[in-house]
């Protein structure tokens, strides 16, 4: 199950840990460090899954998600939103914007890996 995963987060250390985790799961990983470049990477490479941070410079994860969902051609891209804001309203906003799943930071690596597996196998 070799899938392509895009990690969109502006925290270098979180990127390092997510990158390691995804590679260990056997996926090909690419990285974007702000909103606009995340959207560009999604449009350019159409990854199977995006781990999308909400608070990013340039363009928030919500905005990226909304833009992706507005684009028919990107319908196959799964989106898992990650946010250090865990309030119910944020989670609701995430699913309203069309995210497939929402996890709060700090996350359990095991749960994250499971959620990723689940999303990718459903595809």
């Amino acid at each position, binding site marked *: 199950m070799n899938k392509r995963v895009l990690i969109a987060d502006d925290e270098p250390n*979180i990127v390092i840990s997510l990158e*390691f985790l995804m590679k*260990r799961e056997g996926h090909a990983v690419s990285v974007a460090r*702000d909103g606009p470049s995340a959207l560009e990477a999604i449009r350019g490479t159409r990854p199977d899954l995006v781990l999308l941070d909400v*608070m990013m410079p340039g363009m928030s994860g919500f905005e990226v998600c909304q833009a992706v969902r507005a684009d028919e051609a990107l319908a196959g891209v799964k989106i898992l939103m990650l946010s250090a804001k865990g309030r119910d309203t944020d989670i609701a906003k995430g699913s309203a914007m069309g995210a497939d799943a929402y996890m*709060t930071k*700090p996350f*359990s*690596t095991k749960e994250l890996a499971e959620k990723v597996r689940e999303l990718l196998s459903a595809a």
Partner: protein
Amino acid sequence: MLSAPLVLAASFAYLLMLFGVAHWADRRARAGRSVIGNAWVYTLSMGVYCTAWTYFGSIGRAASSGLWFLPIYLGPTLAMLLAGSLLRKMIRIARTYRITSIADFIASRYGKSRTLAALVTLIALVGILPYVALQLKAIASGLTVLTGTHGGSGPWWSDSTLYIALALAGFTVAFGTRHLDTSERHEGMVAAIAFESVVKLLAFLAIGMFVCWGLFDGPGDIFARAAAQPALSGLSGLGGESKFAGGQWFALTLLAMLSVIFLPRQFQVMVVENVDERHVQRATWAFPAYLLLINLFVLPIALGGLLHFGVGGADPETFVLSLPLANGQSLLALVAFIGGLSAATGMVIVEAIAVSTMVSNDLVMPLLLRLRHRASSDLSGVPLAVRRVVIVALLLLGYLYFRVAGEAYALVSIGLISFAAVAQFAPALLGGMYWKGGTRAGALAGLLAGFALWSWTLLLPSIAKSGWLAIGFLTDGPFGIALLRPEQLLGLSGLDSLTHALLWSLLANAGLYVAVSLARAPSAREATQALLFVDVFQRSAGAPVFWRGRARLAELQQLATRFLGAEPAQRLFADYARRAGLAGVERIAPDAQLVQHVETQLAGAIGSASARAVMASVVEEEPLAPEDILRMLDEASQVRALNRQLESLDRLKDDFMSSVTHELRTPLTSIRAFAELMRDDPEMATEQRQQFLGLVVGEAERLSRLVNQVLDMAKIESGHAEWRNDQIDLCELIAHAVQTTAEVFRERGAVVSVQQPESVPTLHADRDRLLQVLLNLLSNAAKFVPAGSGRVEVRLTVDARAAQVEVADNGPGVPVDQQQLVFEKFRQGGDAANRPQGTGLGLPISRQIVEHFGGRMWLRSEPGRGACFAFELPWTRQQEETGA
């Protein structure tokens, strides 16, 4: 023909059903599941505009003069499309000041004048009586057609119309006066009225379809056949055989426009019973749509009836009954009658409730208060009793009018007389909502003149034409003075009597209102009410309280108990105490705010003019001068500004908490992720493990830095920080700071140079805190200078007043739009991808420290040419300015 008992039984069954609807809605309301909190119900309840007059009368009008029935519907449609904002303003004013009737509205606007309230009530009462009579007439003639018995004649005790009037009275009493509510809302009644609007619409449409497609081959067929008959061909045009009478159309449309807003029952359902201002938005198009639907078949039914019975063959006003009857559709005729009954009952119920509120509050209460001014007697039951009596009296008077004048006049003409009466409210009410200069005297003069001219030019002629007055004054003028002839006043002729009456009465009314208002400046009380009304949208929050004087809590409580009853009064004060955050009712300060609140609540129960009067009797008031009002306005706007500031502080605090949460979670995320990765993978390469451990340690350090700084910030902001008062040699302190950061700069390959005078005076401040500021500025500079070629200059300059320290670097600088932001919490400079690690709190804390010692901190930067952070500290600080 149907048997009279059957029709009466069906009628009472319908009324019982209506009662069921009202009861159900009241029960739902008590259970908190209101059915009237809905824009559709609101719109349908406005359908009470369409009375028996619509149902029977407009067909009569169409049958006699073609499209002349239309202005009565064009007017409201125009009014709704144009006056949405007017309606919203009326609703907001009524809600804010607990206004429960149109008399109260006008009286309250002009300084809570009792005289004005009584006058408006009187005009409404006299004006509305013919209208009530009209409903009774409609039911009576409907019964006649349906059963063949004749109502409205014979001895009064055998007249079924009388019993219908009494039944309606009983019904209205049961509907509208079950309990006294200070907002005067009747959920059950509104639901029942909305239900009636549906019933009459469906019944009318059913008849229309029956006539169009059951008796003829569709509307086209009817119009074609009518066009073929010379007697009918004129009816589908404007103004019959004569030319199009533009002036009369305009007058009728204007009249209907004003009526849809100023009729007491329209005011009741649109303003008093409104539960949500936003409902107005839907009503502005949905109500005209309702009117369109209910008028769709007027002309086809009228023409169809004339074709069927021949001109003069049957009374056009009962075509909806006689057409189905003549064709053997007795069930449909019964449905049509029920529809007409619903139109009549809806009007009677709402109008009677509205008028009884006005009479009770504005005519009877003031009299009672004058007669029984001992404060001890409990009056809380009086308003309801008065209203019940008024409702029964209104219906009986309506019946009397019907017996006296009903036969002589067609439905439409009676209705128009009422319309013209309530149109007199327009100048005082509209002027009062938009013009602060209008005065009580102006409103009184205008209303009196308008009412007098209405009586002279419209009411008296109608009575005379019914044969109850000698007709001589109509044709020759009173005492033979031709200029005063009611229908050709001052020789004005060539207009129909209605246009003529409307022109004169409104002209005199509006003219006197403006002229008398302009003659004298408003009094203090008028001016305050003018402000509260005209600027209601600006003042909804933190409304100014225009009152000064002394009151005693016990007396206010006594007063409230007297008019509202013991339990509601207790609740009123308990709620007030709770909202003010007080421990109990006894803690309430009897200030202007409380007086205003109690008076507003009383106004809901007994009208604002009476409330004003009873309030004045128990409190010691000081008169207000115009400059007092200006000052109070000013205070209110200051309170509003303070409120806004508090709100934005609250928001800032929320933002801060949310940012802190986010900032704390971010390093925690990395720490947890790396720790779990290492735990789950014992085989991990040592090198990899070392890298992760290094990152964990780094993130843990960041976390503790963050926690320290957040605590630091919180301490400083809450004023709990400890500040020492050291004697500081700034030269030595700068040297110390540079030395402490030397290692960092060496790593980045940067050079730090210091420029300072030989010696500087001693500064009194907290040494550790100032060191913290310097270290923060230096470490920021270290983060942003280019690796290998960084240059940082620290400059100390002094003058007589203050010492100034600058830390300039040759980094990328700060873009202009971010220069203010860097001092805000959690706003880090630099582009995010390779932003140096920081907490986003260093600069805000530094600035707070500097400001604590009476100094200031700023940033000077041109992008691409480095950043220069600087602060200055005065030698002597002003303790009282900085606080502690």
